[in-house]
């Protein structure tokens, strides 16, 4: 593309941007691009977050599976624990019978041997009684713990099902984000065709347009305030701008006026 043609195109864009000629909405085009950029950034962010959700869900599922395995492991020992406890109770009961018979033997036997035997038997029976109580308590606690473990396993299974659903949703989210990105790419190509702009140019146009409007407003206000000297003081600063604009305007005039839109 030649330099005069480029300048013409710029001029056209600037005219449209500043609303000097027909208000064809180059600013709107630029804002459209800005909106597209924001949507693209948001989609990229959503993609990153989606990937994090997928990764976190995978880790969570691993931990849930491990917890469930542990809980089931505890539950699988239920019978073994019950049998062990039964053995303890059985042994204590046998010991109680031994103590009882020793006591009866002691009661049959004449003093002092019988007396000693009876005392030992009483001691044994006392320990057996305490041991039986403790075994009973232990059995109760084990039963409660196993119930808790069973409840825990059920809850973990429910959490596992929820995690599975979450993983499916996260995967679906990823697909949606990818579809959104594809849509944005399609939108970009259509915007290029419709506006004749690329994202970078659109950004500058929006910037220049905003500054031009601001400059025009400020100069109008300055003129209205009657501060002529202050306005004159700005001339060295605005002269290069005027020079650039003059060049663009004269090229525009030479090319025959309105110029073709991009």
């Amino acid at each position, binding site marked *: 593309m030649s330099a005069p043609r480029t300048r013409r195109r710029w001029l056209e864009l600037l005219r449209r941007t500043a609303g000097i000629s027909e208000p064809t909405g180059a600013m709107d085009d630029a804002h459209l691009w800005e909106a597209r950029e924001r949507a693209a950034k948001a989609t990229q962010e959503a993609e990153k977050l989606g990937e994090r959700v997928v990764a976190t869900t995978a880790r969570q599922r691993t931990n849930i599976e491990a917890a469930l395995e542990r809980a089931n492991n505890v539950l699988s020992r239920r019978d073994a624990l019950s049998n062990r406890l039964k053995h303890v109770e059985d042994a204590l*009961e046998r010991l109680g*019978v031994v103590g009882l018979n020793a006591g*009866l033997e*002691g*009661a*049959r036997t004449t003093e002092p041997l019988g007396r000693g035997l009876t005392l030992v*038997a009483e001691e044994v029976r006392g320990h057996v009684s305490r041991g039986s109580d403790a075994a009973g308590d232990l059995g109760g606690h084990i039963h409660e713990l196993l119930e808790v473990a069973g409840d825990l396993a059920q809850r973990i299974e429910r959490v596992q099902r929820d995690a599975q659903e979450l993983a499916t949703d996260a995967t679906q989210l990823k697909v949606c984000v990818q579809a959104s990105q594809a849509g944005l790419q399609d939108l970009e190509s259509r915007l290029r065709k419709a506006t004749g702009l690329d994202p970078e140019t659109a950004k500058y146009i929006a910037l220049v347009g905003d500054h031009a409007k601001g400059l025009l407003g400020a100069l109008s206000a300055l003129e209205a305030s009657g501060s002529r000297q202050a306005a004159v003081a700005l001339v060295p600063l605005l002269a290069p701008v005027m020079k650039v604009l003059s060049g663009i305007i004269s090229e525009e005039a030479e090319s025959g006026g309105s110029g073709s839109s991009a």
Partner: protein
Amino acid sequence: MIGGAVVEATDVLRSAFGLDASARRFFVRADDARALRYPTALRWLGRLGPLRIGAAVVDGRILACLDAAPSRSIARSNETSVAGLVLYAHERGDSLVLVGANVLQIGVFDHAGEGAVRAFDEVVTVASVTRCFDEIERATFELGRANRAPTSDERRATS
């Protein structure tokens, strides 16, 4: 002085041994008693009648049985064995099992008159195993009569 065990008196045991209704304990002689643990005790506990009297086969012999702690035995119904106190009626050559009887104390106790000892600062009756057997036989007879089929005369009388 007499050696033996003081046992907690439940309603069943009071009834079986013919004890006073207020008796909280009774005494069994050491010569008459021995503790045993019976496997599959619940098999014959399940056959106990109204007086909770049943029969157990131990070492090939049929024993009379009194369940002194039915609630405990029944509550722990998955038990395959139960401890009991065997009482020997020497003159009869029979034995009696007190299932779940709670032995409170074993030792040598002072006599407190005829057929009684002093334990826990109380006069405690010495249980008569022979008397208990008589009671069991009576109860068993009543039970059998209640359960037998009516005779032809009785059937005619009621029709």
